[in-house]
């Protein structure tokens, strides 16, 4: 299908097109001579291509608190959550629990007993027990964690 035409046709740019992040590509320019590297020139590496597997289904959340430090998710980190990824026991998930969002490890091993657990990765925090009386809606699987390390 004619992608370019769609864009010209006025109202459609895909998320990938619009949000592609380009990192600089360095090339020495030799005036007068065509660069021998030109044939090997490649698209710059794209962070989104590496980390955002389902752009339409992904969104960012900012982590508050220390409950997940054991798996390297710190206060202030930005997690990418993906609603399209299949979620299984043991995954790090974002869930809407009783009015607020939380990032935890999903534990379905107690399912037979009629409840689920959301496990923190920090012994100082208690697990969250979810039973039929709780408002519990999974909001996606955490697929990557991002931190600005310039402050270190």
């Amino acid at each position, binding site marked *: 299908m004619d992608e370019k035409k769609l864009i010209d*046709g006025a109202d459609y740019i895909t998320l990938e097109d619009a949000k592609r992040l380009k990192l600089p590509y360095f090339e020495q320019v030799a005036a007068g001579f065509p660069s021998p590297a030109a044939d090997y020139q490649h698209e710059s590496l794209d962070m989104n291509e590496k980390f955002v597997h389902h752009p339409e289904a992904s969104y960012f959340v900012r982590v508050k*608190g220390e409950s997940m430090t054991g798996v390297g998710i710190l206060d202030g980190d930005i997690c990418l959550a993906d609603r399209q990824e299949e979620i299984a026991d043991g995954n790090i998930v974002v869930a809407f629990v009783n009015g607020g969002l939380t990032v935890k490890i999903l534990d379905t091993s107690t399912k037979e007993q009629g409840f689920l657990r959301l496990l923190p990765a920090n012994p100082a925090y208690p697990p969250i027990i979810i039973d039929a009386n709780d408002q519990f809606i999974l909001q996606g699987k955490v697929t990557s964690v991002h931190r600005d390390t310039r402050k270190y």
Partner: protein
Amino acid sequence: MYAIVDCDNCYVSCERVFRPDLNGKPVVVLSINDGCVVARSNEAKALGIKAGLPYYQLKERFPNGEITVFSSNYELYGDITDRVMSLVRKASPTFYRYSIDEGFCDLSGMEHLDLKRWGEDLSAFIWKATRMPVSIGIAPTKTLAKMASHYAKHYPGFKHCCYIDTDERRQKALEQYDIEEVWGIGRRYAARLQSLGVKTALDFASHPESWVRAMLNNVVAIRTWKELNAIDCIPMEDMSKKKSICTSRSFPGMVTDLTALRTSISNFAARCAEKLRKQQSVAQTVCVFIDTNHFREDLPQYWNMGEERLLTPTNSTQQIVQTATRCMERIFRQGYHYKRAGVIAMGISPDTGIQTNFIDYDAERHEKLKRLDEVLDKVNREYGSETLVLGSQQYTKPEGKGKADVFRNSIKHDFRSPCYTTRWSDIPEAE
């Protein structure tokens, strides 16, 4: 076969994406400036809340917060619906977005598939990936597909997808469809048809074409008649090519002075330029219209439109704002109360291969403006729209001192949700 994918209660559903606690509860979205109700959840509709209900009346009827109210947040709706439409585009060979909340697919070549199942699966997938409920109508023509999507939306038995695949189904769908609701039949034609005894889409479709020609003699009406009779005649291109970009608003109060109107026109023009850049295109002509309030019959009425053709097509904020301001100043007349104004960018073409005009084309200046716009877009993307604006876009503060208010602050939006997916400062927090 065509499919139309239509977001259910679009704006309300966007608000629910990051507020799943609001599923099943009455929710409304207000118009720009918090004037009246523009979108309602099914629960709000069931409470008898009509579209267009002024907010102060809603507050009187439901004083205890029984209904969750949001100011419109087009930044959020734009992003969520872009996601939905992107998924639809990936699921079909040819896709044309028709409006913020609906798009058409041409399913030619997919007829051998179980299209009903395709639609059900697509709807379920879009819900999973984006949390947007969509209804899908599939039929041999776009008008019938639109009708099918209506059935998909209102009858849960269809599992969000209604497929008009046989003539028997088509007849049945037409029979239960109000003529007023038919896509392409305006309110005026509906009234005329009703007076002629045409109540349903079937009544209309059953008349011979010669009757339609004699009674309505209107190209769109005849096309609609054909489409209802399963004759495909609206070309896909008609659905998608946006030949112009328009930004217009009704003012909260009425505007009488040139300075205030100039500020609004600057903002509308800046918005048009931004939209042009977003879709990588340029405009050849800038057009401005201003209008008084037709409901105030006690006041003098005035309407006018001014346009200017640019020598070289552009998408530069500065150039489009300057041109729009010139157009406006030519048509502005003192002594009227203006209620509505807008800027339209026309003659749109891709920004690659611009036909330059040697009389006015200055490559250096062009490069400079381009760099300026890049910075403008980058800052506004990163820190929220209208963080960086032209001086002419700033509104005078209500207290009359200084020029330091931007458009978004000059309109009311007391109940606006965060821009969860488009601003770093607004992304949701999780503990």
